[in-house]
């Protein structure tokens, strides 16, 4: 068991694409670290470079204190679970499990013992003499896990191992994996594109975004799931984590009669809760009369009677998932200059769609008018130029 560290890692592919730039990441002893992000953010590349399957252009990778940047994959003592499992099709399950141990020249008796133990842990005893083609998807996934576990490596690397399973099996395997990790306590680096999976499984989660210039950074934030959710470091993380996504609207802090007021772009007048804005004063001090981006999670809204809340809206559409209800409304966008930088993807269009979470019982009908209150204490503010959260 060891720690895994990336220091200033960059990778540029042969065709010029920049996959990784300036990645600094430390995975502690026994930690379950999840790499999450949209396609092209470099998470799989980072994982593969930890395995030695990709060569990095610059930087350093350390495993258990040892520099392994140029070490061959066969000598790194890591085990990898591939997305498509990569089980050796011409070998039985037993042979698949034993292969890695044979390469380490372990005595036959020891190999047999470990294979039996791992098979027991994963419920593969009766499948040992079958070939992968004769196994179901879930069984193959377990064999892939078994192949990694049986090696007792310094570190596990997992590349979206659950994404090929059907939804129910996926949820079940998620908890099994977590339990297994708690029991074995092996340092794990786990890649997924599913932020729900990331949030439920990781001790810490590293959110990555694609990069295009050498001075960019893939790593947006690395923190325990709760912190990611409640204190996102920037627009990217705030918008990526949480489903339905956080709503972003442009706003200005203005000096009003009773103190600072919050004027949301597209609304005719500032929010009526001047007092609450004053309470946020310390961190918004420097932003007086400047544009900010306001991030409101759907659950920060609460229904009020029309005329009594912070704003009145026309309900465009409602959705009900059983446990939750969602209300969609639109904010008109006044024409103005488009902000550049990290905020670009979240720049509102002609009409900005906003989602509010509401008790299903209280869900109004589409086309009616509703009143909403915003819990400003929990709302997030972001610098429109850099996307960084305003603390």
């Amino acid at each position, binding site marked *: 068991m060891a720690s895994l560290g990336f220091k200033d890692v960059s990778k540029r592919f042969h065709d010029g694409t920049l996959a990784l730039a300036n990645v600094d990441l430390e995975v502690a002893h026994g930690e379950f670290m999840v790499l999450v992000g949209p396609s092209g953010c470099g998470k799989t590349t980072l994982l593969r470079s930890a395995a030695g399957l990709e*060569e990095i252009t610059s930087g*350093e990778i350390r495993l258990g204190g040892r520099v392994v940047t*140029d070490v061959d994959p066969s000598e790194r003592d890591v085990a990898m679970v591939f997305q498509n499992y990569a089980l050796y099709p011409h070998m039985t399950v037993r042979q698949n499990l034993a292969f890695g141990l044979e390469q380490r020249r372990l005595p036959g008796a020891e190999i047999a013992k470990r294979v039996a133990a791992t098979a027991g842990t994963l419920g593969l005893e009766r499948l040992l003499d079958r070939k992968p083609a004769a196994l179901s998807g879930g069984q193959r996934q377990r064999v892939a896990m078994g192949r990694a576990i049986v090696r007792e490596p310094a570190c596990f690397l997992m590349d979206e191992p659950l994404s090929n399973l059907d939804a129910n099996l996926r949820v079940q395997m998620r908890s099994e994996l977590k339990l297994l990790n708690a029991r074995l306590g092996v340092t794990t680096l786990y890649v997924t594109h599913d932020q729900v999976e990331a949030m439920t499984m990781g001790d810490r989660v590293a959110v990555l975004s694609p990069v295009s210039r050498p001075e960019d*950074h893939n790593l947006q934030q690395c923190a325990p799931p709760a912190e990611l959710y409640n204190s996102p470091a920037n627009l990217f993380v705030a918008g990526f984590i949480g489903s339905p996504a956080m709503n972003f609207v442009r706003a200005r802090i203005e000096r009003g009669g009773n103190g600072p007021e919050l004027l949301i772009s597209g609304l005719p007048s500032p929010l009526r809760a001047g007092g609450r804005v004053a309470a946020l004063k310390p961190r918004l001090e420097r932003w007086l009369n400047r544009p900010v981006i306001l991030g409101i999670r759907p659950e920060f809204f609460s229904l009020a009677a029309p005329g009594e809340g912070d704003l009145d809206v026309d309900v465009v559409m409602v959705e009900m998932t059983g446990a939750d209800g969602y209300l969609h409304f639109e904010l008109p966008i006044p024409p103005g200059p488009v902000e550049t930088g990290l905020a670009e993807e979240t720049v509102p269009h002609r009409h900005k769609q906003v989602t509010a979470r509401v008790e299903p019982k209280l869900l109004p009908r589409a086309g009616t008018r509703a009143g909403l209150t915003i819990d400003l204490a929990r709302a997030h503010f972001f610098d429109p130029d850099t996307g960084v959260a305003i603390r």
Partner: protein
Amino acid sequence: MSNNVIGRAPAFSLAPSRARRRRRLFPYLLIAPSVVLLVAVTIFPLFFALKSSFYFWNLQMGPKPLGFIGFGNYRMALTSAVFMASVVNTLVLTVSGTVLEVFFGLMIALLLCHALPGMSVARALLIMPTTIAPIVVGFLFRYMYDPTGGLIPWLLAKAGVPIPRTGLLGSGLTALPSILFADMWQWTPFCAIVLYAALLSVPPHVIEAARLDGASAWTILRRIRLPLIRKTLSFVVMLRFMQLFNTFDLVLVLTRGGPGSSTRTLGYTLYQQGLVDFNIGLASAMTWIIVIMVNALIGLYVVFVFRDWE
């Protein structure tokens, strides 16, 4: 332990270590043996031929070259009527053969596309001519063309088609077409099978969509299927062109270049000069003229057709 986003200066760049350099060389090491072998067996003789082409050298007059004559051999080759006739014959054979074989191959491929019982058997049988050694195809057609009792003259006579008195292979007018026909017989099935496989790879939904759009079978062929099999089509054309250009076995067995030089191909003329008349110097010059010609032709073809290839 959360990180902020604000940038940091990029650190040092790693100089390629020894392990990394070794890893990069590995693939080239794998390729090396085959390249070395091929170079030894082809490039080396070709350079030997280059050197020999500047000498007067005839094995019938002695085992060693007899004197440096600069471009003399080249001049002789390029002014020789026989050589020039070979160039013409070869080009005529190659171009017409390629066009006809690909055309008929495509027709047969379209026929094979109908999924009817027995088609797979038909396909397996159809490839048989291509499996035969070209020289044996020569034997076959020499038998079939025989003026005294061959099947083909008999059939043609029955159909009322006039045959030259000296036989199909004995008349300057019909000899080359007869060779062409033999080659077509052997290789049209090849074109058919390969184009059939390519046609299969056209997604059926695309064709269905076209049919719903009201396109006729001819339109579907012209504007959907053919463009989608363009890569294979180019490849087949190139393969046939290359092989037709090198026609040798058939000429050797059927006509030996005659009557006159009406069926002399470049391959055969080369053989005649170098391995029958043993005029090594002249043959070497001819070799290089041919090599340059072929490479220029194929080079042009590749550049124009395979620009976007893998």
